[in-house]
């Protein structure tokens, strides 16, 4: 991004009533273009929102880091350079580059880093933190020729690696990848000596943009896509299985088909991290079944659901997969080697990302792998991610309609269902936060929470969180529902409530409300319901109590709830975590 583009983005009009976002930029530099760029990336990501980038004092990295612990903000981008560790490691100092100086720098560095880790830990308690740097080379401080590694640099890098290792273990701290920065910003084009000496800002404009973009992506990562639908012939393997035969399609280095092995390997890895993998192929079902069962397949049958093989249109197969997964097209990537098939699917599902598998272009495949990691990457794999595919498959096997349609009481009574409700009054439940921000259908009002909003919510008097886990004889679903509210006298105000579509039709929502009425001794619940384009399932639930419900905030009394609540068969356990 050029500076002129960033300035133009920052001047775009604000949307009246849009949220104000505050981001701390912690560095020891004059913020200058870095501040402008951080603001521009924030404004581009949150169009119409007001964005304030708060910078600290020049030359006081440690003080700036320490001070944000007492602040409230959406996040902090911490950008560190070697000169923050010791001013003698920057070009603006002239205190000598002799052996005494290097020995002293090495002696001071561990102590400084110990103080930094303590300050970083405090800051991360207050807000999410992304840490990036050092991005600039060390000055030629030792007698070694530049082509040779020198002990000062090696020892500093070793100390820094130890610091990063500790930082990575802190909750709420994300480390930006040096490799990712290398791809965006070549080393030789990073340093601007003129600007450093003139203004205390050592970055070229292009490097400032790269640092801001990468740091911002770490601080506010995009929600990962949920599912990938892949073609088979010339995509998952080399060859046309219907023509060549099951034994003659290949994905090996020896068979000159290694790109397909890499692709399978990536899909298996995505599946193990909770990404849904489906197959849409124009083929003979029996032949495909046999091919997928080959023992040398890297993508195992257990990774895949569903397999849609027919001679019909690809878009029809894709539609059936979306229905089985019960997710929107915008959360899915479709991969096929045929431009025609991609166009046909894209026409039917414009929101779906449709990507060509470049089977004859190894470099293109490597780029595709990186692109898919970008689309599906997540910094944490939770138990629910591992359970997702199994629960979808189980639901399909018993012929249960996940998106709607109540199962019979007889069926429910034989599920041997166990509901576990965890109550807390703190924002420590990362899965609850994730679920709240990615669930669309059973969602009280569609309101998304930033990490700062989330922390702030639990500072309100009487605020509580109820998180629900579920399992039955078909296996565990993990944590599938989250409700947040405030208990005020005889009433409970429910501000958010979501439940994963995997848990529909099991009457978990009724059980949760019953337990909440009991727990709080409440006479009534006020629900901050708002209609969204996709939260029909929750509106349908409220119609159990109010047949004429049209989608406004509502109050449900205990009497009305008891009158309409069906017979429930779950075993229930309830636990309370303070979290503070």
């Amino acid at each position, binding site marked *: 991004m050029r*500076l*002129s583009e960033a*300035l133009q983005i920052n*001047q775009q009009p604000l949307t009246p009533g849009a949220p104000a976002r505050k981001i701390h930029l912690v560095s020891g530099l004059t913020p*200058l*273009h870095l501040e402008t760029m951080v603001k521009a990336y924030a404004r581009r990501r949150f169009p119409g929102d007001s964005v304030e980038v708060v910078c600290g004092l020049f030359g006081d990295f440690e003080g700036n880091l320490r001070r944000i612990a007492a602040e409230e903000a959406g996040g902090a981008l911490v950008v560190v350079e070697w000169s923050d560790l010791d001013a003698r490691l920057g070009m603006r100092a002239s205190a000598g580059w002799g052996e005494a100086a290097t020995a002293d720098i090495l002696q001071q560095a561990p102590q400084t880093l110990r103080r930094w880790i303590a300050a970083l830990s405090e800051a991360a308690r207050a807000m999410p933190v992304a840490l990036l740097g050092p991005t600039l080379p060390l000055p030629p401080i030792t007698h070694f020729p530049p082509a040779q590694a020198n002990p000062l640099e090696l020892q500093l890098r070793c100390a820094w690696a130890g610091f990063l290792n500790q930082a990575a273990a802190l909750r709420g701290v994300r480390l930006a990848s040096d490799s990712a920065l290398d791809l965006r910003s070549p080393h030789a084009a990073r340093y601007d000596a*003129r600007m450093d000496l*003139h*203004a205390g800002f050592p970055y070229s404009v292009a490097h400032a943009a790269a640092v801001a973009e990468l740091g911002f992506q770490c601080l506010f990562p995009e929600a990962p896509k949920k599912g990938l639908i892949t073609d088979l012939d010339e995509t998952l393997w080399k060859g046309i299985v219907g023509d060549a035969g099951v034994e003659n399609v290949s994905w090996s280095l020896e068979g000159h088909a290694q790109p397909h092995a890499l692709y399978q390997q990536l899909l298996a890895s995505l599946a193990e991290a909770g990404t849904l993998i489906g197959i849409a192929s124009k083929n003979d079902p029996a032949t495909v079944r046999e091919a997928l069962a080959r023992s040398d397949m890297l993508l195992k049958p257990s990774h895949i659901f569903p397999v849609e093989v027919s001679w019909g249109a690809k878009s029809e197969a894709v539609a059936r997969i979306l229905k089985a997964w019960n997710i929107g097209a915008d959360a899915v990537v479709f991969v096929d080697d045929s431009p025609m098939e991609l166009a046909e699917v894209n026409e039917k599902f414009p929101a779906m990302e449709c990507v060509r598998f470049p089977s004859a272009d190894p470099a293109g495949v490597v780029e595709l792998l990186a692109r898919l990691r970008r689309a599906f990457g997540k910094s944490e794999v939770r138990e629910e991610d591992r359970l997702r595919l199994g629960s979808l498959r189980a639901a399909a096997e018993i012929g249960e309609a996940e998106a709607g349609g109540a199962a019979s009481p007889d069926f429910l009574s034989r599920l041997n269902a166990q509901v576990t409700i965890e109550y807390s009054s703190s924002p420590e439940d990362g899965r609850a936060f994730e679920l709240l921000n990615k669930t669309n259908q059973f969602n009280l009002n569609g309101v998304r929470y930033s990490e700062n909003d989330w922390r702030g919510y639990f500072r309100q008097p009487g605020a509580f969180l109820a998180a629900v886990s579920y399992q039955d004889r078909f296996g565990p679903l993990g944590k599938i529902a989250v409700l947040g509210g405030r208990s005020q006298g005889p009433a409970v105000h429910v501000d958010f409530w979501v439940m994963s579509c995997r848990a529909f039709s099991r009457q978990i929502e009724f059980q949760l409300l019953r337990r909440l009425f009991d727990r709080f001794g409440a006479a009534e619940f006020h629900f901050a319901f708002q209609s969204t384009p996709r939260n029909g399932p929750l509106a349908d639930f409220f119609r159990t109590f109010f047949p004429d419900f049209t989608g406004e905030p509502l109050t449900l009394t205990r009497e009305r709830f008891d009158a309409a609540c069906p017979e429930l068969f779950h075993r229930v356990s309830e636990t309370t975590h303070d979290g503070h």
Partner: protein
Amino acid sequence: MRPAPNYFIASRKPLMTDIENRIVACFAMVFPNLTPDQIAAANSATVPEWDSVAQINLLTVIGEEFGIEIDFEEFEGATSFGHLLERVRALAASA
């Protein structure tokens, strides 16, 4: 030479040079509250927002616009629209 953004063409005299139009556009990015007429008369004494940071932003944006590397110290005294226009014209002529 690239044409100036349309919103400036509409409000400027037709005889204005392309370089001048582009400098005006650069000023508008750094000082979005100034009208084109105020830009033409702008200097660091009359525009309160014109501080050292704004000066660096202005010179950087002009550098980007014309594809030239600007020596900040050499341009230190160029603190009015007229001065900057004159310097950039000179640079363009010598390029």
